[in-house]
């Protein structure tokens, strides 16, 4: 599959669920999704069409004064990366789990949930992953407002 | 399928001398590019502080005594240094260098790890100030 075919197939697949589709680099496609509930169907579609494997899940905190969190699902095929981007409200962020269709997504989702406090619905084992078991509840290290014990460099 | 495929290596080694280096009894030459203790050339330094800003380990401190008279002292924490040589490449004046002969830096007390680069008077001034603060 060459790059254009991949982009075209992916575009057809996610068009209905997307708010906008951008191409920041020649080998990247960023899909801004409307609804977090569409994640599983979009990911299943990408898998069925053999458009990449889930390379990583990135969580983003755009800033202390913003009331959203962003979650990025990167799917890679050859040199192409298709990113599904979701915006979640910071007050009660939640997203469905991909473990049903992609078993290897579990460590990524657990990392996401403990580092950003995003509730991943349907996660088989929502225990701590990186952080100690006795980590303070409701304290999410990768959020921008986390500054306890910050070492200024 | 074979047995004892490494027997030949072992028998060959029987007739060779050990390859273990006898450091510290014998000191072998170090590679030319080895990064050791930092060296500073006070003539060229303008006190811009880029080295301190870029140091990933916070090993360099610029202490300015008098900005107008260009009196400053560079404090180098050898124990924090990771010997990455970023400061050498950040310096636009080329006044920093990593020596390849001073690399045996272990010591039993802390003094050798706290190095001041600068004019003698300035260093004394800093040291006097720090002891005054300490007491």
């Amino acid at each position, binding site marked *: 599959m060459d790059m254009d075919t991949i982009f075209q197939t992916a575009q057809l697949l996610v068009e209905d669920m997307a708010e906008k589709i951008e191409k920041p680099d020649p080998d990247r496609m960023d899909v801004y999704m409307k609804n977090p509930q569409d994640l599983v169907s979009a990911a299943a579609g990408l898998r069925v069409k053999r458009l990449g494997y889930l390379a990583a899940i990135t969580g983003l905190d755009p800033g202390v004064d913003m009331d959203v969190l962003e979650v990025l699902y*990167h799917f890679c095929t050859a040199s192409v990366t298709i990113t599904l981007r979701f915006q979640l409200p910071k007050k009660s962020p939640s997203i469905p789990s991909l473990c049903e269709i992609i078993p290897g997504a579990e*460590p990524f989702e657990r990392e996401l949930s403990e580092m950003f406090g995003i509730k991943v619905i349907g996660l088989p084992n929502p225990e701590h992953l990186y952080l100690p078991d006795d980590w303070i509840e409701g304290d999410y*290290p990768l959020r921008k407002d986390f500054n306890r014990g910050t070492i200024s460099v | 399928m074979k047995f004892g495929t*490494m027997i030949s290596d072992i028998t060959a080694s029987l007739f060779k001398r050990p390859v273990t280096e006898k450091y510290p009894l014998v000191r072998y030459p170090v*590679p030319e590019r080895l*990064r050791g203790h930092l060296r500073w050339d006070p003539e060229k330094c303008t006190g811009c502080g880029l080295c301190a800003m*870029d140091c990933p380990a916070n090993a360099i401190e610029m202490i300015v005594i008098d900005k107008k008279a260009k009196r400053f002292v560079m404090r180098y924490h050898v124990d924090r240094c990771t010997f990455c040589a*970023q400061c050498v490449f950040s310096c636009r004046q080329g006044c920093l260098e990593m020596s390849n002969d001073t690399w045996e830096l272990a010591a039993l007390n802390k003094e050798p790890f706290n190095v001041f680069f600068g004019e003698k008077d300035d260093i004394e001034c800093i040291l006097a100030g720090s002891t005054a603060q300490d007491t």
Partner: protein
Amino acid sequence: MTNRKSENMQANGKSERFIVPIGPQHPALKEPEHFRFTVEGEIVTNAYVRLGYAHRGIEKATEQRNWVQTNYLLERICGICSHIHSTAYCLGVEKLAGVQVPPRALAIRTLVAELERIHSHMLWLGVAAHEAGFDTLFMYSWRDRETVMDILEQLTGNRVNYSANLLGGVKYDIDQEIADSILEGIDFLEERTRHYLEIVTTDALFLQRTRGVGVMTKTQAEVMRAVGPTARASGVTRDIRVEAPYAAYPQFPARITLATNGDVEARFVVRIEELFESHRLIREILANLPESDLRARFPRRIKPGETIIRVEAPRGELFYFIKSNGSDKPERVKVRTPTICNMSSVVKLAVGHQLADIPLILAGIDPCFSCNDRGVIITRRQNKPDLWTWEQLRQYGIGYYDGNNK
């Protein structure tokens, strides 16, 4: 007494199951990690891994350092594949800043990366041979590995954490003297590597430990998202150097190395054949080293933007996501290391094997826990998790010996 006991056990319809805890501090593991293997007799029926003992919060720490400092922090994610982390970060940040890196610098980066691959694979060869109980191979391959360590020391000044990369270029040039000593070292290594390939494919005793052990089929490798040599040993064509060439790989194309068996032997063969590919690439780069500057000027602040960079580390695909907000510090650096992808395959493959094969299966993916430091994965043979807490196990033991277990 014993007979009566075993009859009792059978009468209760229970088979004897034990959990063997390994780690976090354990002589069989080189790094802190905790495994729990449920065994029935010698056969592993369930595996559990708790990672995260080496978690150092590096992703958060990048938010407090400037672009230059972050390079050295990320280089220290892993001691074995340090250069590739720094290369991935530098390539990403340079793309973000729109800085054109001189071709000679890219070629030298690639050269160091290939030398690092040789040193990493040789290290792995030794460790894996040691886990299989073949310590002669371990000692000799590590002795030969010193050659490539010396080359790296001569080239960059350090044996590990070379600090060869600078944002916008590299620090050290290659002159004729160094090129000659690299070629000499590579000739020696190639000869030795050929010898090791012969050993791992013909030694009868060693093959009993590796052939047919830990087989991962191509479909399994794809489903479990295995990366790097682990995936290539199962016939999955996944090599970022070939799929999406970066740095100097467009000028010096790499060839993919594949095996189809998917067992531990295939992983040995793939890694050793990759060494030959690295030797070839190093010779080609040295013969056609482009002439140019070594460093481009690099801005202190980087315009806002996001970038994704993928590179092929010795252990597989390394994924970086870098976001800038226009200041002199990164907004977010996300690192996804190869071991996290391969770890789920280990836990899956362990089930059904003898406990004695586990170290070799684990070593087969070339795990790097410092890179990894995350993840708990459980595979289950039954629907219910069969994990016993220490207290349950203790109570069971007490009950067993008190004869209350009837």
